């Protein structure tokens, strides 16, 4: 199976390559934002209100200092976008990470031990899934902000957002991993190590975990896209990142107020970047999903 996998990896379609490269480029650029961005938009002393709403450099009134123009505060839009993408990706990635670790852990436990542990974990997951993602995230983010004044600050908001998104997403990992664990547990290699008498923890982590990671990878990729979107939606609704430390969603929210005023770039560029990022990740995730779905193998 691994052989066929690596063979298939060599046959990655061009579109997936491009999408992957695009997503990777955005992620790398975002990660390196402090190094490559022309300005530091989080430094309040670095921008000046006088420069507000300058159009992109390529338009007639463009200012050569600002490639993609400036926002309503005079921040360099390109820098704001790079930093914003960084925030979005960190939150999205953080949410995926937390959800994956929690979900995989609980899924393994539920699937391996079964019985009441399984029932308790999965029923709890069912309750969580009774709330739509966005509502739950809105609630968690909103409630956290109301309870802890600090929750809306630049330092804490990302953690709140990670929690708000992950609280719903872990169930998906748990369900998948639980199902896969049940399948793997019944397979002979696991029975073999059980006969040997290895402790459960070791069986789960060393033997089962590596074999259930395939679907987890797929979910994680697709969820990264979804998490970035959820974060954007929360920020758009005003319970996301503060404007002093904007994510892409915050930038779009701010820009949205300028949609009709001719200052189109403030909304357009961040929205474009967000869509491209999510699209790139989604294309890769989609392809991975098909790759791991044995039924779809051997088809174009």
């Amino acid at each position, binding site marked *: 199976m691994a052989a066929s996998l690596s063979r298939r990896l060599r046959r990655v379609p061009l579109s997936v390559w491009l999408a992957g490269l695009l997503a990777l480029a955005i992620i790398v650029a975002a990660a390196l934002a402090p190094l490559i961005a022309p300005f530091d938009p989080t430094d309040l002393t670095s921008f000046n209100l006088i420069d507000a709403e300058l159009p992109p450099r390529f338009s007639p009134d463009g200012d050569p200092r600002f490639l993609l123009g400036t926002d309503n505060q005079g921040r360099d839009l390109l820098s704001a976008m790079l930093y914003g993408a960084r925030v979005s990706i960190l939150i999205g990635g953080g949410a995926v990470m937390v959800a994956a670790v929690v979900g995989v852990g609980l899924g393994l436990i539920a699937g391996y031990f079964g019985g009441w542990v399984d029932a308790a974990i999965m029923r709890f997951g069912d309750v969580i899934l009774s709330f739509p993602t966005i509502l739950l995230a809105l609630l968690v983010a909103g409630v956290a902000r109301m309870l802890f004044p600090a929750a809306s600050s630049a330092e804490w908001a990302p953690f709140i957002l990670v929690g708000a998104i992950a609280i719903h997403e872990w169930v998906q990992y748990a369900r998948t991993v639980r199902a896969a664990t049940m399948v793997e547990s019944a397979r002979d290699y696991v029975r073999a190590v059980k006969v040997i008498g290895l402790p459960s923890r070791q069986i789960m982590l060393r033997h089962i975990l590596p074999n259930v990671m395939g679907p987890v990878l797929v979910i994680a990729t697709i969820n990264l896209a979804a998490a970035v979107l959820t974060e954007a939606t929360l920020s758009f*609704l005003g319970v996301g990142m503060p404007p002093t430390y904007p994510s892409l969603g915050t930038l779009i929210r701010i820009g949205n107020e300028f949609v009709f005023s001719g200052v189109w770039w403030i909304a357009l560029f961040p929205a474009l970047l967000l*869509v491209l990022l999510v699209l790139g990740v989604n294309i890769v995730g989609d392809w991975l999903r098909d790759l791991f779905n044995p039924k779809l193998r051997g088809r*174009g």
Partner: protein
Amino acid sequence: MLALLIARLGQAVLVMLAVSAVAFGMFRFVGDPVSALSRENATVEEKQELREALGLERPVLVQYAGFLGRIVQGDFGISYRNQRPVAALIAERLPATLELVLVATVLSLALGIPLGVLCALKPDGIAARLVQAVSLIGISTPTFVTGIVLILTFAVTLGLLPSFGRGETVQIGPWSTGLLTLSGLKALILPSITLALYQLTLIMRLVRSELIDVLSSDYIRFARARGLSTRHIHFTLALRNALMPVITVTGLQIGSLIAFAIVTETVFQWPGMGLLFIQAVSFSDVPVMAAYLLFVGLLFVLINTAVDLLYALVDPRLRVRS
């Protein structure tokens, strides 16, 4: 079937208890209705008086017991902001949201299933590739961006469709419907497309992958070996199998749509429950927020239970063995 029903109802009660706890938590700990209620230059004494009138000084458990007792009787309290029973407010908004969600669901099924079939049957065709590509863009674009783009295009630039609201509605008993007037129908187009887009993509992709799965199954191979027409195999046999999970997903998605309607309703000023909720949030109108939560939770639970039971009815394997 009975066991399933009982299990599902038990789960539903569990969920509703969790929801009510959250709702109460919000009621008690979130926001401060006092300052939302008092006027701009209210005195300290006025505010304290209000606090006592609202019962915010009583012990938490007493408040929770009271809360549970009231919601069981269908009394969700009075909106701080509108001074009207919350139940009535929600009932008034329900039609708008449900019609929007319903149309969006129908739209996503009506388009999602055929497109999914297309992509599964001709995975290498130009049309399928195009649909796949567009669908990826569809799930990669945030709802609010889609809504704004649609408004800019069809309302502002082309002037074809209204940019907000429900248009004219007709009152049928307690239900106000926008489905019976031209302006109501026109007003539905943009919001329902915005809302449906994500689900459409989801259903399309689900149908595609399920159908591909089913088409490679033994019983389809056997059906081919029996010389049945390809048409019959694809559309009567395989599609039916492939649509089974669509039932579940559609059910789950209806719940999500109700929640996602918050965003759509905000963008299109659609006077539904989502807008009510967002308004309530910005006014700290806790009774409305709590009732919305309970209501959406209940709706979600009901839909899920109904879907499970429906699934059991549709799938012969889950029916009672006589």
